[in-house]
């Protein structure tokens, strides 16, 4: 039965009011979800099973059906580059997701305060999202290159003390990647948050002004909790992007200096194509 789900289901009344509705609705719902089910089963699940199956064999450059147990996984986790990649993607993920959320939220709040030329601001903050990660990586590679970028320009202008050389330092390079990621994705967060802010009742502002509640407290304790769905959506999208990070790293640092910005997705690509090592297990989905 389709109408078991309580208050949020619009089915219940319709199903009760019309005898046919009871039969028709599950069919419609099943039909609507069939493509998604097929994709999940065949592509996502099927591919994962296939991948796991390959990972248990001795395949390297050519497929092999010889069973090898977990030895490929031992090989993987014995690889320093892999554990290094995991560590990097964690640092990147935390800085990138939190940074983009914070910048995006601040931009959305600023724009929501009845500024002039609103659509112009919106466009300026959102356009990076229309660029691919490759282009983003390239642009920031120039800007952050100490020899030609921001540092060189500042020094040429007489600021001899100025230093900005993250991409050349192995302890800072991963933050440089995160900075470029934030630049690209903050606009998306802004749009999602702005949609949430616009859904907030205008009476709220009148009420808080009468009560004399300071603006920052209104945002922190009243508005932010109401943005729950927007925050959740933004968080999910950004986290998905962070786990999958690949092109940005390739264009910006190509994993370097050394292996300081290696990430799992890049490790997979390199194993797949550069080294023809197919069975080295891809990280199984959580």
């Amino acid at each position, binding site marked *: 039965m389709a109408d078991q789900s309580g208050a949020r289901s619009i089915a219940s009344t319709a199903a009760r009011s019309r005898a046919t509705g009871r039969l028709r609705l599950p069919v419609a719902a099943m039909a609507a*979800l069939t493509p998604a089910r097929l994709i999940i089963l065949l592509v996502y699940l099927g*591919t994962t099973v296939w*991948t796991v199956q390959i990972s248990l064999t001795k395949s390297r450059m050519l497929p092999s059906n010889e069973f090898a147990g977990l030895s490929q996984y031992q090989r993987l986790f014995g690889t320093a580059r892999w554990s290094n990649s995991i560590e990097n993607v964690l640092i990147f993920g935390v800085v990138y997701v939190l940074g983009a959320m914070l910048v995006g939220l601040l931009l959305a709040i600023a724009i929501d305060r009845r500024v002039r030329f609103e659509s112009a601001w919106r466009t300026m903050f959102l356009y990076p999202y229309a660029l691919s990660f490759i282009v983003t990586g390239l642009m920031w590679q120039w800007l952050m290159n100490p020899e030609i970028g921001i540092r060189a320009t500042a020094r040429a202008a007489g600021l001899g003390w100025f230093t900005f050389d993250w991409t050349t330092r192995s302890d800072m390079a991963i933050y440089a990647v995160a900075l470029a990621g934030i630049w690209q994705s903050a606009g998306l967060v802004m749009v999602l948050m702005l949609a949430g802010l616009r859904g907030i009742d205008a009476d709220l502002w009148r009420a808080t002004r009468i009560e004399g509640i300071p603006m920052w407290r209104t945002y922190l304790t009243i508005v932010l909790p109401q943005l729950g769905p927007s925050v959740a959506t933004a968080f999910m999208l950004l986290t998905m992007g962070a786990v999958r990070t690949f092109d940005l790293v390739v264009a910006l640092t190509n994993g370097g200096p050394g292996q300081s910005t290696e990430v799992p997705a890049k490790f997979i*690509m390199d194993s797949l194509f550069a080294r023809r090592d197919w069975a080295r297990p891809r990280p199984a989905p959580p």
Partner: protein
Amino acid sequence: MRDPFPAAARGQHPQQLTIARIGLYAFLLIAALFFLLPAYVMIVTSFKSMGEIRSAQIFALPHMLDWSFWIKARSSACAGINCNGVSVGFWNSVKITVPATILSVLLGAVTGYALSFWKPPGSKLLFAAITIGGFIPLQIFLFPMVRATAALGLYNSLAGIVLVHVVFGLPLTTLLFRNYYAAIPVELFKAARRWGRLLAHILRADAAAVAAHAGGCRADADDRHLERFSTRLWSLPAATISP
């Protein structure tokens, strides 16, 4: 296109020009600088000659407009064995983007609708699976997808690439649509149903926003392996500059 943020429901009332207002605009200006800087550098550099680029003044304006890189990109840059510029790749990109975006949005809208309102048995599990799917690096799918599309006879074809885009766009579009519907009061749907305007009316508002989003994603959803067919829609300036 319809403005997705109607002016009626704005935050607080406007005030006089206070210090807070000045601070607000200062923040927006600084943010705009941060967001526009890379684009400025890219555009300026695309008009410089090679010698000027090597002089390492990336913020300086070009001495004179040098269109040669743009001309080269348009008509003679090489993508693989094809040396007709990015226009071929550009039209390929359009051919991929338009159907893939339409199909992705439709699929996401229908799936999200069924997941948030109809909730047939197993829909929670399905949504969880779709969400988890969004976290898997696309590179994991490469080898199986190449084999699978080859087996279906879709390898190296437009339909195959569109299919791949729709399949891997599913988590994103579903998530956006589902969360959007989840924020709509059920009463609205009941009223809409009573007035005979079902889904379409409410859909129209969101579809534009999601379509813009999905269009943006198309550009980076593909990967190196597919790159030779689909030169990215937005890579024109980049192609211009790399000599």
